[in-house]
């Protein structure tokens, strides 16, 4: 049975804003994602050249070598506008909070096998700095990228990475206290194992082409590192000491699934635009894959010993397969 409630119905003059109707037709209302995203960035008649970049307009498609007829083709399959984004992350943090709470109230960290605990601290704590680096890069893409469809999720990713750095900080505090964090930072700054990765992160900070930075950070570094850290290393630690670390890194593994949907779609649409884009993406991908694998090799060995190389290769193969599926031939 259906209850048929009546409301006073008035025929609207139009369903949505004219720019959106021009793209999607006049006959249907547009979603909140579409109305809050499409064409929202100013495109024309900027008043002044930025004093910090007089070669470009305030928003300028030529800040990347990638060329798109319509930058709003890069829609986010998750349809994240602010409200949808905040609510999705709030749900994830609620789960993560429950997991942290479970580990804390049961005293699971204290009861964790000492060797495994040390291994988790040594590997995961320095990664909070990698996430900080990713936050810098997300801010860069959001500031200098083109079109709200891409710059909006770039800021969301930047803030997600800040959240990840904070979850890793909590993991460090829980398993090793402040000393654990300090030791991790020391290793990040000085230990030979971490230097290639730190060099890589600092090198991404000076990349000027925001789309190249997207490939370096969101496709390659996140792609390979999250496979390694939250699948390979996680499974190995779980085998040794149970799922405590899996619980403390649950946010990251869920986030990675979520982010990949978006990253794959961005690369797919950009590559499909034409051969020049596809070649350029391929070139960047190969370059940064080389850099990332080199930087992660000692870190993978730190966590997994002799099995590190194979685990890293598997992680890279997964990203390769993803990229092949969305149209990169490299």
């Amino acid at each position: 049975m259906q209850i048929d409630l009546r409301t006073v119905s008035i025929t609207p003059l139009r369903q949505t804003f004219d720019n959106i109707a021009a793209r999607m037709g006049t006959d249907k209302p547009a979603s909140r994602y579409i109305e809050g995203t499409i064409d929202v960035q100013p495109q024309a008649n900027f008043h002044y050249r930025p004093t910090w970049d007089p070669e470009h307009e305030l928003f300028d498609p030529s800040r990347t070598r990638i060329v798109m007829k319509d930058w709003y083709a890069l829609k986010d399959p998750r349809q994240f506008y602010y409200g949808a984004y905040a609510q999705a992350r709030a749900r994830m943090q609620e789960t993560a909070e429950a997991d942290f709470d479970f580990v804390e109230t049961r005293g699971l960290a204290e009861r964790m096998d000492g060797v495994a605990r040390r291994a988790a601290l040594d590997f995961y704590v320095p990664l909070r700095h990698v996430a900080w680096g990713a936050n810098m890069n997300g801010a860069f893409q959001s500031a200098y990228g083109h079109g709200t469809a891409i710059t909006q999720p770039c800021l969301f990713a930047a803030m997600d990475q800040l959240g990840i750095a904070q979850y890793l900080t909590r993991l460090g505090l829980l398993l090793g206290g402040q000393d654990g964090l300090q030791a991790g930072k020391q290793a990040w700054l000085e230990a030979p194992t971490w230097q290639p990765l730190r060099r890589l992160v600092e090198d991404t900070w000076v990349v000027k082409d925001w789309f190249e930075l997207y490939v370096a950070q969101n496709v390659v570094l996140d792609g390979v590192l999250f496979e390694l850290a939250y699948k390979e290393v996680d499974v190995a630690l779980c085998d040794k000491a149970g799922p405590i670390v899996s619980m403390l890194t649950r946010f990251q593994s869920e986030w990675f699934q979520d982010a990949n949907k978006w990253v794959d779609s961005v690369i797919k649409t950009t590559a499909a635009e034409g051969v020049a884009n596809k070649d350029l993406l391929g070139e960047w991908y190969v370059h940064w894959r080389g850099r990332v694998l080199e930087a992660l090799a000692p870190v993978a060995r730190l966590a997994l010993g002799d099995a590190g190389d194979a685990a890293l290769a598997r992680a890279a193969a997964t990203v390769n397969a993803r990229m092949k599926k969305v149209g990169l031939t490299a």
Partner: protein
Amino acid sequence: MDMKASKKLGLKERYTLMTRDLAWTPTYQAVKDVFPLTEYEGIKIHDWDKFEDPFRMTMDSYWKYQAEKERKLYAIIDAFTQNNGHLGVTDARYINALKLFLTGITPVEYMAHRGFAHIGRQYPGAGPRVACLMQSLDEIRHAQTQIHSLSNYNKYYNGFQNWRHQHDRVWYLSVPKSFFDDAVSGGPFEYIIAIGFAFEYVLTNLLFVPFISGAAYNGDMGAMAFGFSAQSDESRHMTLGLEVIKFILEQDPANLPIVQAWIDKWFWRGYRVLTLVAMMMDYMLPKRVMSWKEAWEIYAEQNGGALFADLARYGIKVPKGWEQACKEKDHLSHLAWNTFYSYGMAAPFHTWAPSEKDMEWLSAKYPDTFDKYYRSLWTHYAREQAEGRRYYSTTLPMLCQICQIPMIFTEPDDPTKIAYRESDYKNIKYHFCSDGCKSIFDLEPGKYVQSWLPVHQIHQGNCFPSDVDPGKPGFNPLAEVLRWYRISDGIDNRDYADSPDKQNFETWRTQATGN
């Protein structure tokens, strides 16, 4: 509201581990290559760690609280929409204030989002970087909650449908647009003084309170809801603005004159944008909250006065244009509404002459000026309109090179004389509405000769659709500019009395309230 890191850690210590402790000084790349924009404005920062975090919110609590706010807000918007809430506003004239908001304010919320992302990448200090990025995220929230709240009005009323296109083109919308373009194109320190301090801290109450209280007074729960929902974000932003200015001033005495010059500039620039708010308050709200003059006295003269008294210990003085702004409070809204009434063809919202009852209110609120200088104007217009000659100016006004408002302002001490100022730069003359705007130009002429002045652009032939030939006989420049603006003549513009909005509102309200 922090992550439960460890019971032994204090709140401040814990927050430090969650933010600044994540950062490090790069060694594989030079600091100046990673943060290339920190020196060129002349601001000297010796120790970024001295920055006091204005609020301590980690991302997990941010998501949690913001998601809760979003759920509530959208529930209200949905209820308002479902219940035809737009028919409950005092009078459809009110809806024109919302058109002004969506075309004029929402786009600059978006610009604030991008601007804060920019400085949130560029500051070498982790503390302010995180605070700026959080503000960047809030600002896209504000842009989108406004679009979503006003989306329902767009379905029933004319003048919302081309907000994005019009913000980049229509003559008076270059006032807020050039303001924000100016801030974002400045350096990262100037930006935060301009937006974080001068706008968010000193002037935001004069922008936000009038619009949102206006919504509350006029039965608009939709717009009221996004305003109230943004309130706690705004208070974080205000705290950031204040912490930043104190931090910069405490870092080096050489920063004082630079900061003072920015305060002078951005106070004046922001104040000129508020001209639009002044006329909205006094002329566009069917049920008024308070007069512009009263708002100015409370939020500027009292609150702002106390703020500058507080900043005096750093050597900061009241901004240069302060005194003139106080003198103008008796005139601003009247001059502005007269302009919009006269150019009522060229704006995508409706204008009207105040009724006799409106004029009683204006006269009571402006006892020294309304009857003396402005009433006769409206009586004249009303008479003309009653005889079928609604006045529309068909000329183009001269614009101030800086604020881009038509040259309508009178001399601070002579309300019968229009103020004109000018400067020469590379053998070309530039015109200004005031000493404040002239001095902004004189400090940085190379920047302001670039202004995209809508009237100049029309004269240069840049504001016609590409399918017309201005050289052909019978070419109608005004009609073509309106077409280029995407203003439907007779529908989106002109007098409220003749508008489809008025007619529709009356029909629908009758339909909704009886059989």
